[in-house]
């Protein structure tokens, strides 16, 4: 092989079916069904056979050449709770991602509305790039009830939800306008993976991340990047995901070489870089980037005295919060982090509203056919938010935040924004 086309070589494709070898995982499953009892979709949807079927059983069934993947795989919301539930390390979400990709590739009509709707939702970043060029116009159009009805009727995108508004200035525009990094450092360097949502919709989260890290003396890099791939995995668009992942791995690997660690503000993004990339792809630096990727708050806890600095703050302009830990935070062992970190602030109480999945799971709850299921899953969280005293929600996941706002009517903030308010004496934006 010549070095010229080294970029085209994807080692994982040497497996006969283009997949990783999932047999050891399937063999480890002894059908205890604990994953099924942790699945938020199976609990409310009688038609969904659960993660045990979607993973090891579908894999076994489809070893026969004439057996197709069952279409129930598309009802999996990719919350990945089954991974943490399994007592024998079956890589369930990897099997689901692989099965979903195979289903979309082999059984889904590329001419169907469903396929194009899913592709549209999965490639949110592309849509957002155009939409955010004229944010006010786009917001007006997408908020129009007639447009929403048309979306529902012809595309299968529910009209029940408010389309998230585009910011009038993207995070990257703000970053460029301020002239990039305000702090230079040789030994404290992080590369920020902001993802599409913090860029186009909630730049205040990205700004909070930058200001908090600069407060601790970090040089922040914000390289060109693409969507983490999470919505693509969840819709079986593995080719789209592969292109995005390769770009991200190559970009961030170069920065890792220069002494940067990668930090994310969205827990689905960190999940993708840390776990899903190594499970699904095998680019040269996938494992290395994974090992250098952290949740932003986690990173500060490891390397700085975040607890101590927060404990020394005596006046924070922030309300009390009803906190929801996203599924993808749970799977990374970040479930107790926000409440533990914020407990250092005397003025602020972050009350955990329980373990229920919010139910939206990225693009899942945007599909007309899933809307009711999505709200049924989220019901427990809505109830707990209602019972909790605080009027303001708190979470690290942008789509969980959408669901929390949608179901409770309360505004929702990000943990980094609270830390920013505490450390830099800013008020929380409304």
């Amino acid at each position, binding site marked *: 092989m010549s070095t010229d086309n080294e970029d085209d070589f994807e080692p994982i494709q040497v497996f006969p079916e283009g997949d990783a070898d999932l047999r050891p995982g399937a063999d480890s499953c002894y059908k205890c069904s604990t994953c*099924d009892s*942790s699945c938020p979709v*199976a609990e409310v949807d009688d038609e969904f056979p659960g993660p045990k079927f979607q993973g090891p059983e579908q894999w076994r069934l489809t070893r026969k050449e004439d057996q197709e993947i069952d279409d129930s795989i598309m009802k999996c919301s990719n919350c990945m709770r089954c991974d943490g*539930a399994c*007592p024998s390390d079956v890589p369930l979400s990897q099997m689901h991602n692989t099965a979903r990709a195979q289903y979309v590739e082999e059984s889904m009509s590329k001419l169907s509305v469903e396929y194009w709707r899913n592709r549209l939702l999965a490639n949110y970043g592309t849509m957002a790039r155009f939409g955010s060029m004229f944010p006010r116009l786009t917001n007006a159009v997408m908020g129009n009830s007639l447009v929403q009805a048309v979306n529902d009727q012809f595309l299968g995108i529910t009209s029940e939800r408010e389309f998230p508004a585009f910011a009038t200035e993207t995070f990257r525009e703000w970053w460029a306008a301020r002239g990039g990094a305000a702090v230079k450092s040789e030994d404290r360097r992080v590369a920020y993976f902001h993802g599409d949502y913090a860029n186009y919709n909630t730049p205040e989260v990205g700004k909070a991340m930058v200001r908090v890290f600069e407060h601790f003396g970090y040089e922040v890099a914000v390289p060109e990047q693409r969507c983490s791939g999470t919505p693509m995995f969840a819709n079986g668009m593995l080719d789209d995901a592969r292109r995005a992942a390769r770009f991200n791995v190559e970009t961030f690997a170069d920065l890792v070489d220069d002494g940067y660690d990668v930090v994310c503000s969205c827990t689905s993004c960190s999940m993708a870089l*840390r776990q899903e990339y190594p499970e699904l792809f095998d680019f040269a630096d996938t494992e290395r980037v*994974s090992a250098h990727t952290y949740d932003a708050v*986690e990173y500060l806890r490891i390397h700085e005295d975040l607890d101590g600095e927060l404990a020394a703050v005596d006046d924070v302009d922030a309300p009390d919060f009803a906190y929801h830990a996203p599924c993808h935070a749970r799977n*990374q062992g970040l479930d107790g982090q926000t409440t533990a970190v914020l407990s250092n602030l005397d003025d602020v109480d972050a009350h955990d509203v329980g373990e229920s999945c919010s139910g939206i799971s990225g693009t899942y709850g945007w599909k007309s056919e899933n809307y009711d299921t999505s709200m049924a899953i989220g019901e427990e969280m809505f109830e707990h938010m209602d019972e909790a005293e605080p009027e303001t929600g708190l979470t690290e996941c942008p789509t969980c935040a959408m669901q929390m706002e949608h179901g409770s009517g309360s505004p929702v903030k990000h943990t980094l924004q609270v830390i920013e308010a505490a450390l830099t004496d800013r008020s929380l934006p409304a």
Partner: protein
Amino acid sequence: MIATEVLVVGGGLAGSVAALSAAREGARVTLVSKSESTLKQASGLVDVLGRVDGDLVADPFAAIDDLPDEHPYSVVGTDALREGLALFDDVTGDRYRGGDRNALVPTTQGTVKPTLRYPASVAPGVAGDGRETLLVGISTDPDFDAKRAAESLDATVPGDVRGVTVRFPRLRDDAKRTRHAKLLAEDEAFRDALVEKIAPKVEGADRVGFPAVFGEDPAFVRDELEARFDAAGEPVSVFEVPTGPPSIPGTRLRNLLRHELEAAGVELVTGVPVVDFEADGERVESVVVDRNGARVPYAPEQVVLATGGLVGEGIDSERDRVYEPVFDLHVPHPEDRYDWSEEPAFGEHAFARFGVRIDADGRALDAEGSVAYENLRAAGAVVGGADTAMQKAASGVSLATGWRAGTRAATAVNQT
């Protein structure tokens, strides 16, 4: 490094009790568990000492004196077991029943299990009082054959036991137990239809047992079902029969403990394994958690290891050695692997007693019997020296060693 005072590794019963007792002593506690709590696979029953040398034990506290010196109860003492049980009683309140003597709880296999604490929803089914019992199985749940279980119980316990299998209304053939639970808890029409099917088969029985699918609030479901049986002219007590995994009573216990841990301010870190550590010879200095690829170091003052036994990955083996995989603690075992087990299935297997040895303070010991690291304790099934499966003592050992390790770790923190 992430600072914490007490780091507990393992989220089962032992780890939860250790973390809770340390937090209640005022320590700042982090609980790291590799996957969801194993309590979801457990029956929700608390067995303390059900059999010694094959004989049923009525009074476990009296029988503890006869146990060998290396048994965890002998090592940490009966007072640790009493304190662990007191903590458990405090957490569970009126959701659990049981006193100082074992009760015989019927299982879905048609056996009875000697147990000291059992869910209140299980209590009306306890064997031995001679009442007539009807067991109800779900036709689509192959794990509970009610007729076969009833035949077996009928032959061993006083009082008639009959079994009947019904099809739960409106459900797919492979509906999950969580689905049954949700419908029973939330759907009145479903409860109506179910009792309508079963009432004609009660035929004067005193109590009706269902597989344990009564959801988060079993008292509510029991009340609802009993009211309907009443209305149908068949007044009965309704109870749950504990199932194998996935277990709703186990999940309830796991949720109860989790809420207590959160209320006590314990930071819960779920779904990630501990993969490495550093020590200076006498003390564990840091513990590394693998968070989906990234290595995250913790700097605890005290560590409690509660990772489970041979079945639960807390103890591992290769062809020629048995070892504890996180800290490589000493695990006594016969040199020759052919001595690890006996010929008969229920023989005196050495492997059943594999595990780390501890001192009265809960600290793990090295091959010479000295403390391995002064700030490292072990609790639960990772502790060896007893065949807790044969003795029906696994939960009690978790309570006793978990309480001992947690409180001593907190004491050590408070002294510095």
